[in-house]
């Protein structure tokens, strides 16, 4: 079965469908509902036998590259342009089809935001290349 990464972003991606303030500005009960929903997503995926992994990333970022022979690595710790993509975390799922991955991503995106209304967050759906050559 193909594996897909459902990526959540701190920023980047298409124009947000719904502009909302950062989460620390939400009402406490909205934050609670949001976190409960994400826990629920994890449970749903485990229940359905599609869960592989879920991780969250801190927003701190360093770009690093080889500095050349006998030189230290070159790093930039920011600030980075506000328009650049910043991944916040992911679900890795093992599903029947691309359609199922899209269905799950849409479900994640229905997570409640301020006022309990869906966030309509854009989810980046990426297929993981399989390690074995195709059998056909």
């Amino acid at each position, binding site marked *: 079965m193909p594996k897909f990464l459902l990526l959540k972003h*701190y920023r980047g991606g298409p124009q*947000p469908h719904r502009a909302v303030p950062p*989460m620390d500005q939400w009402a406490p009960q909205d934050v609670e509902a949001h976190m409960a929903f994400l826990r629920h997503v994890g449970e749903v995926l485990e229940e359905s036998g599609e869960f592989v992994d879920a991780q969250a990333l801190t927003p701190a970022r360093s770009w690093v590259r080889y500095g050349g022979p006998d030189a230290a690595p070159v790093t930039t710790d920011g600030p980075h342009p506000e328009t650049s993509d910043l991944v916040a975390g992911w679900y890795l799922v093992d599903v029947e089809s691309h359609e199922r991955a899209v269905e799950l991503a849409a479900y994640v995106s229905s997570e409640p935001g301020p006022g309990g209304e869906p966030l309509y967050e854009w989810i980046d759906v990426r297929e993981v290349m399989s390690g074995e050559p195709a059998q056909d």
Partner: protein
Amino acid sequence: MVEQPVDPRDEGALRALVPRVLAGLVRRGEDFDAAEDALQEALLEALRVWPEHPPRDPAAWLATVATRRLVDARRSQAARYRREEAIHAVPGPPATVEAAVAVSPGASVGGDDTLFLLFCCCSPDLAPASQVALTLRAVGGLSTGEIAEAFYVPEATMAQRISRAKRTLRGRRLDQPGDLAVVLRVLYLVYTAGHAGRVDLAGEAIRLTRQLTLATQEPETRGLLALMLLNHARRAARLDPEGRIVTLDRQDRARWDTREIAEGVRVLQSALALQTEHRRPGRYQVQAAIAALHDDAASVEETDWPQILSWYDDLVALTDDPVRQDPAAVLGRAVAVGHVLGAAAALRETDRLRDVLGHRHRWHAVRAHLHELDGDLAAAATAYAEAAHRATNLAERDHLLRQATRARAAQPASEYARAGRRAHERARLDGEGLGST
């Protein structure tokens, strides 16, 4: 010592034999890694054989079977390398010169085996992650799979980490006394790694430290055991049923383990009793004393903050430059200052740490707490949000976010509305609308 029969289904009793048997093999001159592998095989054999044929002397049985495995391994090693080369047509690992040590029957096994093995596993030549892994395997008797699960890494990765660590120790003389401070630090690392999956690492660390207190009179060892017990006693109250963090001031104290607290206090007192004019209590004893004062309060209001502050004074006095050498102690002291002398004084204390800890979430979380103590909810909310932004642990991040929204919502209505409008404006302007993760 009279041998008690060991039930092979009692994993704890079986694992308690590991340090004794392993230490016996290593003292006899066996290579640490080979002896450790052989003992693991002997343990598996014990699980199979003992239910039908319980041994009279379980430790001796394990030593005998492990020794037999060592002899077998030496015999077949050369042959195995030849076979592997033939099959895979690649060079196998270089044939090690494993000195065929003659087995001297009746080799003496001292009472300080645990200490001896801990010194081996906590060799300063090993990185902390390797010290921890090797300690859990060789002293704790955990399987590689269990250790891997506890640290969320693939089993193959942990197996490699352990075998690299054992290779590092190979050929090393293991008879010099080690550094007890390193051993204590490793045990504390195991404790703070908490627990995941089937293995309760905190419980394992307590078990090993308790064993160590039997082997050394050093008061800091007892101090560490007391510190672990006094913190561990609160574990049931630390998370709510949804896995959310409950801070000390909001915990249901009826859920604290009073037996563990009593033992912790007793162990701490026995350590403190050994202090003299020239030998002041070390850092674990001081931290245990602070934990004991928290545990001792029947309600958060009854917390003896002046006493806690005075222990923190002792803690920061242990280093010459506490801001740089022990900033965590200075930060903890600032909280106590807040409760004794007021939030303003405490915030000034944290200012001294800005250069050292300003990039860490904990510094912002403490400042948020102090602002809240001061009644400045707007500043508290901002600092909690900053702390959440910098958190590296999911449960802590979620907790800090909740604290931020709670502090913001508790502000007077007019201020709250203003803050909300400002936030909304900002979100619209920079297009950074996705606060969710």
